[in-house]
């Protein structure tokens, strides 16, 4: 389905993404992990064609999407939705309009200027907001919503595109743990219910483990791990993050879960009560 062949991006002397190759046979949820600056964002931006690749191939259903130009490129972008860390909504416009922006790839500029969205499209947008549990905010300006709600609007915009792939660039990095969980669950549900492929850059290991079927590890632009969550041992994780023995998953976790063993917790409580 998706075949990445030696995808490379260089900025001057600096290689951001270095000959990344992997194959995806059927839609699944993929998490890309790695330190900041490992090339995760650049990789996703190349897939969406926001950034041009320096070399390599990216075949989707047999077609090299890196060679697409003009209209064909915009059509690919509408097949390949993107979700950003900072949501990238139009803050001054209402939520439904922001969701409707998902149809722009198939729309003329003149039609856009006169706001020619059909009744069906507007209903579809509201249905999507309902599905993500934020329909009551439909008429509000996007900037009036909380971060978690804005990210769900961004997911609705992505779904409005009816994409084959959803790319998520650090979708939960600017959210609190509670909202992060809602957003990740929404992405997982979209994958399970609609059968869409989801590729997400994640900055915490436990999130990748919990929601993804397959994990790709990147370090300094190169792919250093590709496997299932079970194959991702602490040793491999340390290698991906370039960390020493002090590194533990709990230290990077943002989840609401008890990381302290119960006996240790009891000991702490005992200390406090003394």
């Amino acid at each position, binding site marked *: 389905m998706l075949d990445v062949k030696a995808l490379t991006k260089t900025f001057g002397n600096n290689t951001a993404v270095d000959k990344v190759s992997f194959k995806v046979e059927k839609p699944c949820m993929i998490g890309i992990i790695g330190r900041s600056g490992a090339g995760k964002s650049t990789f996703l931006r190349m897939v969406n064609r926001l950034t041009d690749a320096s070399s390599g191939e990216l075949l989707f259903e047999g077609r090299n999407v890196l060679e697409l130009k003009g209209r064909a490129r915009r059509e690919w972008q509408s097949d390949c939705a993107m979700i950003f860390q900072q949501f990238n909504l139009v803050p001054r416009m209402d939520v439904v309009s922001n969701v409707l922006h998902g149809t722009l790839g198939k729309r003329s500029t003149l039609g856009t200027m006169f706001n020619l969205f059909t009744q069906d499209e507007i209903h579809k947008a509201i249905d999507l907001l309902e599905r993500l549990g934020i329909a009551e905010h439909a008429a509000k300006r996007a900037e009036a919503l909380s971060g978690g709600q804005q990210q769900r609007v*961004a997911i609705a915009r992505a779904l409005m595109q009816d994409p084959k792939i959803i790319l998520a660039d650090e979708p939960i990095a600017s959210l609190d743990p509670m909202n992060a969980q809602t957003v990740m669950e929404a992405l997982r549900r979209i994958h399970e219910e609609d059968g869409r492929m989801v590729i997400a850059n994640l900055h915490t290991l436990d999130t990748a483990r919990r929601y993804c079927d397959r994990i790709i590890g990147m370090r300094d632009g190169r792919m250093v791990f590709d496997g299932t969550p079970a194959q991702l041992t602490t040793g491999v994780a340390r290698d991906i993050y370039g960390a020493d023995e002090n590194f533990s998953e709990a230290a990077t976790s943002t989840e609401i879960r008890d990381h302290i063993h119960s006996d240790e917790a009891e000991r702490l409580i005992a200390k406090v009560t003394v």
Partner: protein
Amino acid sequence: MTYIPMDTRSHYAALVRRKRLYGGLTLGIFALLMISGFGLANERNAGGFWTGLPQIFDFPAAVWADTAKHLAEIPAHLVHYFPALLETINIAAVSTLVGALFGTVLSLLSTRGLAPWPAMIPVFRRIMDILRAVPEIVIALMLIFVLGGGPVPAMIAIAFHTSGALGKLFSEVNENADLKPVEGLASVGAKWGQRMWLGVIPQVAPNYFSYGLLRFEINIRASAILGFVGAGGIGYELKNTMSWGQGKFDEAAAIFLLLFLTIVAFDQLSSYIRNRLISEGGH
């Protein structure tokens, strides 16, 4: 321990002395420029600057003397010249709108990060420079020669200048626009026009509007002045009544009054609208 505050004091005193020296030098240069400038103006002037200075109030006095005699006719004059004023405002409004439209396009084409052809940015910037550099009156005179007198040459002339001026101001506004929404729209496959219309314009519209209103005020004055060279409107009437020896100074006074009231009215209106825009923070 005591030497530290002493040192601070002497340092600060030195700083103050240096500041005073610079201040004195600046003042000296300023005075020198003023004196030499006045001297030059006096030499070049036909009548002589200092000898002409007492006569500066002759014209207002003559206007007042004429007006005082015909005070009762002023309201009739105001009504008589009102249509000409409307024509002037009309010229200003159309040219501001047309200028703002071209200015918007030029500004988007010449803002880094938004421009569809980054290599062409200097070209569009120079085009705006040229539009601003040529005085309205020169374009108007040229067009009047070609098209004949009337409001259309004035409108085109002012629109020319306005698109250059607003283009520059708008492009400064654009530079502060947040690019995240633009990137978001790019990711769904939106074209350049769609990205600008939906991603940039909603952000910059209040500022555009505010600059547009300011320009409208300026254009009312410009449109009045262009009447002097035959472009119609109230300026043309003012030129006719203002000539010496016609005894029409009461009518000139009525026109001055009209212009003054118009400028005040639009100034108040635009500051009211701008305040509301700012307090709302929206468009």
